[in-house]
């Protein structure tokens, strides 16, 4: 891609990408930290994690302002227009990711006193790893303008959904076994749901990357593995 005749325009566009990668890095970190603070029963770490979400929000606001200014001043067209709009959307998604991670960290604070069965956390650990990798991959795809890689992320979200399904069932089982687990498990259920939502946001980013690079959204339905909305367990398992 040849450069813009107006250099500052080029720099501004590059600046948007820089901010996105900064935001992405922060979001990634936040997801990891949030789960770690949960797993390690460390309320102080969880508090720090909650606090660092504010940075993402700030970056998001800055990006929005920059995008609005650029539309007013440069009237971007074609791929530039798509990039600018994509930045706006991706920033929104990342901000949501940050919020979800913050929510995980809050729940980590709430359940830090409880002891939870070890087996429960392995599923969540798996989810966190998957979500983090998806997020990292889609941000790489964004930075490299690589729609194939983005589409890979898009399709792989199914795996995260599958793990979520099993975690969901597992938590339901615990709750049915012993009603004293309900409080803890409900929190963990939300943590799992948050991680699943983060995966959904990565697919949205992946779609945006496709639009940004190809000018069109991916065709067809995204493969989905989240069956929890239609799952109902009645009575204790015998």
């Amino acid at each position: 891609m040849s450069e813009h005749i107006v250099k500052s325009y080029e720099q501004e566009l590059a600046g948007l990408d820089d901010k996105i990668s900064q935001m992405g890095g922060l979001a990634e970190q936040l997801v990891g930290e949030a789960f770690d603070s949960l797993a390690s029963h460390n309320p102080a770490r969880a508090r720090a994690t909650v606090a660092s979400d504010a940075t993402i929000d700030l970056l998001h606001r800055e990006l929005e302002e920059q995008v609005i200014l650029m539309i007013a001043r440069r009237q971007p067209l074609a791929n530039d227009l798509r990039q600018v709009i994509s930045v706006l959307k991706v920033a929104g998604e990342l901000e949501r990711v940050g919020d979800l991670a913050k929510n995980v960290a809050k729940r980590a604070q709430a359940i830090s006193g409880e002891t939870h069965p070890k087996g429960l956390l392995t599923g969540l650990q798996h989810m966190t790893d998957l979500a983090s990798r998806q997020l990292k991959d889609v941000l790489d795809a964004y930075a490299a303008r690589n729609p194939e890689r983005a589409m890979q992320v898009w399709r792989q979200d199914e795996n995260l959904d599958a793990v979520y399904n099993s975690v969901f069932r597992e938590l339901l089982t615990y709750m049915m076994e012993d009603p004293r687990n309900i409080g803890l498990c409900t929190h963990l259920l939300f943590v799992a749901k948050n991680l699943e939502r983060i995966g959904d946001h990565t697919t949205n980013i992946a779609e945006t990357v496709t639009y940004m690079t190809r000018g069109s959204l991916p065709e067809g339905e995204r493969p989905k593995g989240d069956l929890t909305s239609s799952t109902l367990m009645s009575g204790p398992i015998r």
Partner: protein
Amino acid sequence: MDMRPDPLIMMTTQAQAPTTTPTKVAAKNVNVYYGAKHALKDVSVDIPEKSVTAFIGPSGCGKSTFLRCINRMNDTVASCRVEGLIQIDGKDIYDPALDPVQLRARVGMVFQKPNPFPKSIYDNVAYGPRIHGLSKSKVELDQIVESSLRKASLWEEVKDRLNDSGTGLSGGQQQRLCIARTIAINPEIILMDEPCSALDPIATARIEELMEELRHNFTMIIVTHSMQQAARVSQRTAFFHLGILVETGSTSDIFTNPTDKRTQDYITGRFG
């Protein structure tokens, strides 16, 4: 950069945005030479009826040249030679049997700089109908003048001073007067060669509003340097570069997702 336009891409582009309206102007393999200079190379394009088609491209890319081929204005340039086929309603306009003067009565033109005749506003509008004998009486001529000025949304501003000189109007009014003069002879096609380049944004907006109204009755082709203007007023856009028609397509496609890299580079301000 010396990439030939890929006919496959062009075909797919057109296929992606099929014209629902019938074709008014069809050009096939049009080549234009100014002396030894090859100004326009193998241009083929279909222009749909009753819509606005914008020609964009850097200076000297041949868009004005092509525009002037459509009403044979290039005939007045001695060194200019036009090859290929240009049809209006399926009839070759370079047919030797066709009189270019009559053609120009069917294909009106509005120019870059507002160029009203240094006569009264009335005479400016009445000139075309007079020389073509379009009115049988003074009353009829008055009606033509009024309706043309109304269509050009100038009537309210000038109705009390029809006998004032047309050159005394403001730039935007002059340009609308020129449009009124053009539509007074009821052409089928109106060519506009950068009609707003000498106007301020408000006057430009008036002309653009006018084009939006006129496109329901006329086939309009506009050459413009303002990409935003092309994006605002046209339904289809054609991008010319170095005498080649690089890409044509629906305006929304061209400005959000152009097929050709050169188009993209041009409209995003990356030309190098």
